């Protein structure tokens, strides 16, 4: 038992975070939002090697695990990264690596990007022009071409301005039977744990904006920051995020370890991260006052992503039922350490 990140892990995560903080700025979000085009960031992400973090080394990647990528997913959340980094590098890459080496190399290199439609996260995002949609259900895995009239046919608009629902046909099967079931399960695990990590990052980002605002905004002739109502609300958001984060680390490591309770750990992580991020968003808008309800501060990008992501890769009922089945149905011992590690 040594529940610390290695120096390598910390270094990779800090590099990725510094890169994203520097490049994936709020200014860029505003630009992407108004111009509905893309820019060169995806190429830079590929150059940084971020798309191949989980791709095997012999397929051109770093061959690292979920525990490593979870830190990158959190950083992506902190900057509200709209690009499909997590979908490609975190979910698709490790799955495709086992099916199609050439395709896997192309994903790691950023030459080929996918959107994902999984039973637990059916909305395939076409906003960043994916080359294909990876369709995953319990019985079949397929690859489809997104139609060019993206989103129009389905008519769906997400609250997140950087998500447009792709229209796609049935696609070409690439796995079925037990193989499909395995991929389905693996995708569900990876999607949920990185979704949890992203939610933590999004919550941190929202909280940071609220803190900055509270230091600067004045009412009654002084900044609102020293008011206990503000302080205690933001402190509570901080606490929730602090206690959700280690749950995500444990869940990610459990995937890498093929731990028998990985699903239970993932559900705990996803639920706690979703609750913490939702709370942080509410605390952040409350601290901003009316200004938080506008498009004039950037907070809304973070909040919308939180609202859009919290229900993906297993919603409240999915994860909570899984935990409650363990606690209340049957007679499994729940005394520590029987369920903890």
């Amino acid at each position, binding site marked *: 038992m040594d529940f610390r990140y290695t120096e390598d892990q910390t270094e990779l995560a800090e590099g990725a975070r510094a890169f994203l903080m520097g490049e994936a700025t709020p200014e860029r979000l505003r630009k992407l939002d108004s111009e509905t085009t893309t820019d060169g960031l995806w190429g830079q992400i590929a150059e940084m090697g971020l798309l191949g973090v989980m791709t095997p080394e012999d397929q051109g990647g770093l061959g690292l695990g979920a525990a490593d990528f979870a830190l990158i997913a959190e950083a992506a959340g902190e900057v509200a990264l709209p690009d499909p980094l997590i979908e490609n590098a975190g979910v698709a890459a490790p799955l495709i690596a086992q099916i199609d080496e050439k395709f896997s190399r192309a994903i790691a290199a950023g030459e080929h990007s996918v959107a994902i439609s999984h039973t*637990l*996260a*059916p*909305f395939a995002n076409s906003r960043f022009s994916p080359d294909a949609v990876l369709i995953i259900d319990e019985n079949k895995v397929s690859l489809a071409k997104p139609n060019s009239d993206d989103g129009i046919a*389905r*008519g*769906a*608009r*997400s*609250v*997140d301005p950087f*998500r447009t*629902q792709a229209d796609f046909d049935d696609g070409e099967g690439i796995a079925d039977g037990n193989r499909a079931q395995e991929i389905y399960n693996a995708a569900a695990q990876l999607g949920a744990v990185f979704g949890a990590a992203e939610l933590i990052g999004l919550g941190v980002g929202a909280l940071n904006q609220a803190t900055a605002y509270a230091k600067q905004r*004045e*009412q*009654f*002739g002084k900044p609102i920051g020293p*008011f206990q*109502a*503000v302080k205690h609300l933001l402190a509570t958001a901080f606490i929730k995020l602090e206690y959700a984060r280690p749950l995500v680390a444990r869940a990610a490591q459990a995937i890498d370890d093929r731990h028998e309770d990985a699903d239970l750990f993932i559900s705990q992580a996803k639920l706690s991260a979703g609750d913490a991020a*939702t709370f942080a968003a*509410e605390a952040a*808008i*409350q601290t901003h*006052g*009316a200004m*938080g*309800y*506008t*498009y*004039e501060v950037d907070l*809304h990008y973070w*909040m*919308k992503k939180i*609202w*859009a992501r*919290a*229900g*993906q890769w297993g*919603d*409240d*009922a*999915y994860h*909570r*039922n899984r935990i*409650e089945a363990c606690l209340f149905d049957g007679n499994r011992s729940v005394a520590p350490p029987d369920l903890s590690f």
Partner: protein
Amino acid sequence: MDIAYTDEEKDFRAEVRAWMSDHAPKHRLKSLDTEDGFAEHKVWEKTLHAGNWGMVTWPTEYGGRGLDLIKWLIFEEEYYRADCPYRVSQNGIFLLGPTLMDYGSASQKERFLPPMAAGDEIWAQAWSEPGAGSDMAAIRTTAIKDGDHYVINGQKIWSSRAAFADWCFGLFRTDPESTRHRGLSFILAPLDAEGVTVRPIRQLDGGVGFAEIFFDDVRVPIENLIGPEHEGWSIAMATAGFERGLMLRSPARFQAAAARLVQLCREYPQKVSTAAKAAATQAWLDAEAYCVSTYQTASKIRAGGKIGPEASCSKVFWSELDRALHRTAVSIAGARAELVSGDDAIDGGRWLDGYMFSLAGPIYAGANEIQRNIIAERCLGLPR
């Protein structure tokens, strides 16, 4: 104590229900924070007015039916039961209207109330300024008397409906030497006057529900002063009391939302976790509690009673129940919650829409932090 409806009240309910059933829009109108949606909502106000439903508690001479507050609650219940649109005229009919009834001159009432009830003139609020939000006494926009006019200079912000409205009302500093809540006056100003610039503020949902209003030597006639000059603060505070609270957010609105949440749970039982079910029950309980409390208060007011600072409780209670209610619905919607349109969206995406709007509830009309201060100081007597 009598908690049964009279036959007359029952008949009135039946009348409202029948009319709403015939006239309520078949589809949800576009958001009233868009130009098209605003126009649609104005059309709906005209339909309402044609049925004489503009503001049932007002005297008939101003376009009302002269009904009491219990009937008002019944009207609202039937209005929301039929899922009718939000009132684009709410600033006028719920806020300015009652103020004019109490403080306006006969000619002011005659001039402004009928077009307000008819939805012909839509009103914007003009209270907050960039440096005066929760701290409203920090208002700096001046209205200096010059002959038979006031000349207004300054800036208002968070003026709801101002992007598309015809008039605004608010507090202005008529005594330039004054500080804090002294020297302010309650004044009405047309938004098409020379020197007025309205800059819509884009909301997070893309709509423009509020705006900044810039006043540059805007001249309004002194007839637009409500009540005595320099005494605007107490008028504004009076209208911030109970009746306004009750009117602005009647219980029926939250009960209707709670009923829809219960319906959502019935429709998707497999999507409802234990926590969500408990939260849905609590939301329904709270909406009921708000309703029952409001009937008690309305009964008192109808009998000539007055309401004290405990009115601040109402704002905190409904805004926090509304937020929890919609948060619960969004969690049940799960992966589909993010969809605000399209066939896969649950109930056309109104839950997330409602959640976003509910997040503004603890902020506007006096932030809940301020309301809790008021409760602690005035109801419990804790020191400032």
